[in-house]
């Protein structure tokens, strides 16, 4: 029965456990509960992945109303893989979330924070598995609202979390409204909300309405994806959110937006690589390149490690957009490999940063002095992640970058080749700022006091995956290739 209903349970489990967790009084019990729920969710997502691995598309009619009358959950390989990413990320973060919150958030408030965390997870998974465009909006709002609150919880350590959350709220709500306007235009000319159905009916719809509708959806997603020039909310949000939450967001939030972009470019609009009949794919490489350069350059100048990593995320999102813009099965596959690898790499780095923050209370660059001596393990993982960001061979980052560059090379797109390669150099510059900051002599010598044990497993697993996927990239490539082929409808 579970196997049959996994499609809906993967969303409903965290969704319905959240109110229960919110009512708990003991922060420790709540923390353990979140971990168990997230792990169960990960198991469900894995089950879905197994079910869809052979190309099956699971269609689950909620309320047993056949689409397009009712809402459909439609899980193809992409959705299942994303659900896995989200739930694994939540599980790893749940491992250290209670520890990282200690001291900044009163124990009495923690159960509610955990509940919001579960709601955020449920919302994101809901976006990923649904086949109904309005349902996307509803779950987008669940995840967004909980995200605003989670970010604001960073105020216990830094009051700027409040303004960061507010900025995100205004931008997020505006983006969501744009999304809804887009849906209105598409609905008015097609009469349906089911994405697959929409895709079919779009072919005969009036062109202008489709263009405007897809443009508004695109802008709405772009806001959420922190696309240049709409990226300003993101560094603050990542830097001031509680460290564990920042880690989760870095691994998931913008990735889901990229997912939507991929989904929309195929599912709703049914024109591979193009959104609607305006060629949005052509927009992506320039935007992506601009993000790549701007994100990297700003990262070099930041004075806070988490902010640096956030700008680096903007650069990496740019890389994904570039890959997506290159088009075709290979382009989507490269974007997906980038997406998953970056989630792993950046997740590991943010988790390590959370560990550093937990010990030191700050992540300012000048406060990292002596890190290599006091926290050698944490420092090692930071360096490892940094190398992966640069794209040093034997790390996952090398694979993802090489795929993009090779693709651009084959298409003789020299601008992309040059842009990606040159930004590697800027990446070296900002990664080496971390390394040198960590090696600088500390003002006063502290006793060696490495990561709290709670961080070891998540940090270690993500670090191992960073190296593992850099050497043995075949599973990831196969997965991405199959997803892309399924999206475009060709043979893998």
């Amino acid at each position, binding site marked *: 029965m579970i196997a049959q209903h996994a499609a809906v349970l993967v969303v409903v489990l965290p969704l319905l456990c959240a109110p229960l967790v919110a009512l708990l009084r003991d922060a420790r019990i709540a923390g353990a509960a979140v971990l168990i729920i997230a792990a169960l969710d990960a198991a469900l997502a894995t089950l879905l992945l197994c079910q869809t691995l052979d190309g099956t598309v699971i269609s689950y009619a909620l309320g047993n109303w056949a689409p397009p009358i009712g809402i459909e959950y439609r899980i193809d390989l992409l959705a299942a893989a994303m659900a896995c990413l989200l739930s694994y990320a939540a599980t790893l973060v749940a491992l250290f979330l209670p520890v990282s919150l200690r001291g900044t958030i009163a124990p009495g408030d923690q159960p509610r924070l955990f509940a919001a965390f579960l709601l955020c997870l449920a919302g994101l998974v809901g976006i990923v598995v649904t086949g109904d465009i309005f349902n996307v909006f509803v779950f987008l709002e669940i995840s967004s609202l909980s995200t605003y609150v989670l970010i604001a919880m960073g105020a216990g350590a830094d009051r700027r979390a409040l303004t960061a959350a507010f900025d995100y709220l205004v931008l997020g709500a505006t983006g969501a409204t744009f999304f809804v306007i887009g849906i209105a235009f598409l609905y008015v000319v097609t009469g349906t909300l089911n994405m697959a159905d929409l895709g079919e009916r779009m072919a005969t719809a009036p062109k202008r309405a489709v263009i405007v509708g897809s443009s508004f959806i695109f802008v709405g997603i772009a806001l959420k994806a922190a696309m240049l020039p709409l990226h300003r909310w993101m560094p603050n949000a990542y830097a001031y959110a509680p460290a564990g939450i920042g880690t989760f967001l870095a691994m998931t939030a913008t990735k889901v937006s990229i997912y939507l972009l991929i989904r929309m470019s195929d599912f709703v609009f049914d024109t591979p690589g193009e959104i609607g009949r305006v060629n949005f794919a052509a927009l992506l490489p320039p935007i992506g390149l601009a993000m790549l350069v701007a994100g990297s350059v700003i990262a070099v100048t930041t004075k806070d490690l988490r902010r640096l990593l956030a700008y680096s995320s903007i650069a990496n999102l740019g890389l994904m957009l570039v890959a997506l813009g290159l088009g075709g099965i290979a382009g989507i596959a490269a974007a997906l490999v980038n997406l998953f690898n970056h989630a792993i790499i950046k997740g590991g780095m943010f988790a390590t940063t959370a560990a550093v923050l937990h010990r030191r209370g700050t992540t300012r660059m000048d406060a990292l002095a002596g890190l290599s001596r006091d926290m050698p393990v944490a420092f090692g993982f930071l360096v490892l992640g940094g190398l992966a960001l640069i794209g040093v*061979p034997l790390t996952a980052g090398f694979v993802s970058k090489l795929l993009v560059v090779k693709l651009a090379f084959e298409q003789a797109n020299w601008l992309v080749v040059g842009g990606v390669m040159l930004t590697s*150099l800027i990446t*070296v510059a900002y990664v080496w700022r971390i390394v040198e900051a960590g*090696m600088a002599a500390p003002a006063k010598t502290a006793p060696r006091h490495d990561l709290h044990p709670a961080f070891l497993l998540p940090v270690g697993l993500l670090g191992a995956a960073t190296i593992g996927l850099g050497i043995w990239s075949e599973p990831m*490539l196969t997965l991405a290739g199959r997803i892309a082929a399924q999206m475009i409808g060709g043979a893998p």
Partner: protein
Amino acid sequence: MSPHDLMLTAILLPLATALLIALTGRSPNIREAVTLAGAAGLAVTVYELIAGFDAATAQPLVIAEILPGFALMLRAEPIGLVFAGVAAGLWGLNSLYSIGYMRAEHAPRQTRFYACFALALSAAMAIAMAGTLATLFVAYEVLTLVTYPLVVHWQTEGAIAGARRYLAYLLATSLVPFLGAILWTWIAAGTLDFTPGGILDGKLGDGLLTVLLLLFAYGVGKAALMPLHGWLPAAMVAPTPVSALLHAVAVVKAGVFTLLKIAVYIFGIDVIGRGVGDVLIVIAAASVIAASVIAMTKDDLKARLAYSTVAQLAMVTLAVAIGSPLAIGAGILQLVMHAWGKITLFFGAGAIQIATHKKKLSEISGIGVKLPLLMASFLVGSLSVAGLPPFGGMWPKFLLLEAASARDLYLLVGCLGLSTLLTLGYLVPIFVTAVFRKPGEDDPHALPEGDHGHGDGPLPLLALIPPVVTAAGCVVLFVAAPAILRFVAPAIGLGALP
């Protein structure tokens, strides 16, 4: 053990050594014993590999496939084995020297030092055994990164700045031109396997091939072709044993070795010889002369040696650019001979520093009297590097002259002659100053003896033996050079020896 096992052992043994070093870091004696044992083991392994090498039966060993067509593969072949032999052979000597040097200097972070050293050797072995350009690239990057902690060892501001420069040059060149050239090759030829005769002939026009060769020549930053040589003097902030092994042997030789491999197995010697390499000839020759001239102006001993290295490396690049079997043979010999010669010189410079705390040419007047054996070795090393008989360094210079005149490049012949004179001009004065000048004669700022903080320590035996041995090696190699040439001759299509 089968050749495959031996290849894996050669890479994994230093890795295991590094692990053991890290684990035994608390007791220096055991740690250093582990280092020496690892070095001995590696030397034996590589010897076995060389002795048992048979071109007919050598099979590739695929380890992993990072991307389809971008495989990690090992394959033993003569040029690589020669490089492996040099690196493995000198690691043991250098370890002995390191022990003497690091203890005398009371250096901190010695565990990290020895562990990274072992890791660097592992990477060097992987470079030597690489069966594809992809493998070579991966190992090349690893070598850059594991040597960073060695360069930055003192972690002073100067060291951090120097190491930053080191890393910036090497990563920048490898991530942009080198990787770009590899991708280009990959897409043009469809493979990255090292194949005798090359894989690019007919795939690209000669004009494009010239560009590609230049991309490679500058992409391989470790070859320190001017004007991208700046990292090499910058890296001299490292402890002297690091400069000795890495910046005379493992790292820089990995660079020129990469160029040799690319010339032989990616381009094909004939392809380069038919004109593709001509631009590079000019650049390399200019690099030889310019670096030699700069070396003459340097007062700091290690800086002088660093520029000397730049010049000598450019000679290998020159050999690659000439593109005839004879020139390639010369390049390989230069790789070997320069390694032994230059490590002797670095050992000498370091020993002088230990014994007298002096680093500059202008300060060392007269110290040779106290260190006769050391200075004798230094002289041998100098003459070998300059290319005078009866030392090993004579062979590559001689063969290069032959190769140049065989292609009627008489201007180049002149250049090479000039370079030998310049080499003598910047190396011999060190010996002369140390032995024949009286203390204080040249240096108005010289302090009376005994004023230094540490005082003049006696030279530890462990810091004296290695230079003497390597100096002797220079002589032995003079005799052994034809054997080396015979070993590599089939791979580079070299017929009868001249």
